[in-house]
């Protein structure tokens, strides 16, 4: 019996378990998936929790609902990957061997990487919305907040879902408008990058929204520490920004397992061939999604597209053939802009988000880089698609590689 081991039962690991089990012969291939936690979170929904649009129950389901029969699922901590021996050591000392491994251990927020961030004001005036705990605590705070300085800060790049902090400030603007207290709130978007938008077409098409919504942008602010007493964020070059409510994207890092196993870069992301999705260190390990260091967004859509390429290359590898499938870095993301509207972007390693229609040229129904009600409906419907189609590894009517059809240069 040959063995495939999947580490991580999030979006990527679950998709691969479903795809592989439906293709590989059960009498020849044993598939095992290991994850530490039993709950699957619909992470795009976290963004809606602070504004009371979703609650906790809207974004959680048991992971086991999505694993197919015929996959051995082990809920356990993982102590070490020993790539030279083709084995993994679990937390209880048990050894799992593999012929091929799919590494899908994701990215995590690390507020403790920034001095002062996870101290007195944590979950009192400082919140993340990348964890269920953070999103729910932020909801409780916002419910009774009477106004002041709202600062949205990104501590470091790369981070999961690069458009989420933009969506957050757009939704906050709309929420406080509707609550009748927008005039009592200053919203500031603070980023280490040269701007809130950095790509020419996206800047041209969408940066007006920030001005229109009266959201101030402070670029090139690289967070050093948080002063809890004075309620200020302070950058390495001594800029200080006071806040009453700080929403933060903490430093993102790959799982500690990656570091312990000597497989990561300085942020514990796994060096991965950006086209074949194979680990640069081990020929029989493939890396899917946020855990890898491939230069595209850390996002579920990327995982979904990359999974198809990874599957083809894994099958080639099993047959001893060259890896011919090439991932292009395709990502497709909704951007909620508030007041029931949204935008959508579609891009890859080489092509920045361009205006146009998606997925059908000239028809849409989605408008790329445009701000429409229909784009927002797309995001609303997407939750159903995620649970029922995407996680199950079923086909969606969009190929893995980006298409130029419908895009305008």
């Amino acid at each position, binding site marked *: 019996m040959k063995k495939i081991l999947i580490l991580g039962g999030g979006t990527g690991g679950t998709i691969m378990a479903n795809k592989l089990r439906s293709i590989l012969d059960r009498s020849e291939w044993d598939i095992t998936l290991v994850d530490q936690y039993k709950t699957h979170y619909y992470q795009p929904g976290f963004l809606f929790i602070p504004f009371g649009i979703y609650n906790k129950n809207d974004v959680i389901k048991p992971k086991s609902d999505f694993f197919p029969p015929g996959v051995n699922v082990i809920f356990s901590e993982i102590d070490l990957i020993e790539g030279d021996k083709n084995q993994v050591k679990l937390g209880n000392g048990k050894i799992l061997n593999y012929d091929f491994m799919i590494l899908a251990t994701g990215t995590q927020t690390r507020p403790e990487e920034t001095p002062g961030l996870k101290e007195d004001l944590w979950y009192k005036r400082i919140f993340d919305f990348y964890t269920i705990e953070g999103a729910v605590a932020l909801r409780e705070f916002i419910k009774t907040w009477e106004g002041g300085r709202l600062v949205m800060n990104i501590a470091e790049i790369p981070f999961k879902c690069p458009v989420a902090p933009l969506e957050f400030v757009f939704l906050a603007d709309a929420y406080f408008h509707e609550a009748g207290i927008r005039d009592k709130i200053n919203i500031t978007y603070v980023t280490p*990058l040269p701007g809130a938008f950095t790509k020419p077409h996206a800047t041209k098409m969408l940066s007006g929204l920030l001005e229109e919504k009266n959201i101030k942008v402070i670029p090139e602010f690289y967070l050093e520490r948080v002063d809890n007493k004075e309620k200020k964020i302070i950058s390495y070059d001594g800029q200080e920004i006071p806040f009453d409510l700080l929403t933060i994207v903490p430093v993102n890092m790959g799982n500690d397992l990656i570091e312990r196993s000597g497989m990561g870069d300085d942020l514990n992301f796994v060096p991965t061939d950006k086209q074949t999705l194979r680990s640069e260190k081990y020929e029989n390990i493939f890396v899917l999604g946020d855990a890898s260091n491939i230069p595209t967004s850390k996002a579920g859509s990327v995982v979904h597209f990359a999974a198809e390429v990874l599957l083809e290359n894994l099958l080639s590898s099993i047959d001893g053939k060259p890896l011919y499938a090439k991932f292009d870095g395709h990502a497709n993301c909704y951007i909620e802009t508030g007041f029931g509207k949204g935008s959508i972007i579609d891009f890859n390693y080489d092509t920045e988000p361009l205006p146009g229609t998606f997925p059908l040229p000239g028809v849409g129904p989605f408008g790329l880089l445009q701000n429409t009600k229909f784009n927002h409906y797309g995001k609303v419907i997407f939750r159903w698609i995620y649970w029922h189609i995407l996680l199950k590894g079923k086909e969606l009517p969009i190929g893995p590689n980006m298409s130029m059809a419908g895009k305008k240069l």
Partner: protein
Amino acid sequence: MATKNYAGVAIDVNDEGYLTDPAQWTKEVAAELAKEEEIELTDKHYEVLQFLREETAKGSPLTIRKVGKSGIVDIKGLYELFPGGPLKKSSRIAGIDKPSSCV
């Protein structure tokens, strides 16, 4: 796309003055790019520039934190070498792309 003369050579640059072909970069070009940013390059600067170019060639995304962990210079030191937007300026002088997001 435009061409600009640096160190006696015609170099391709984009609207924001970043090199579009990292292969056209030389130390001399870097020195002239640095002058436009009002920076006089030292050996330390060149070490940082070399690091940025090597990491970029490997395809790994650059961050200030990564430079800070490089052993060449810490984060405060990087700010001193390239005051006011260290990664933006050092990237331009290193002949690589401006740090960017997906949008």
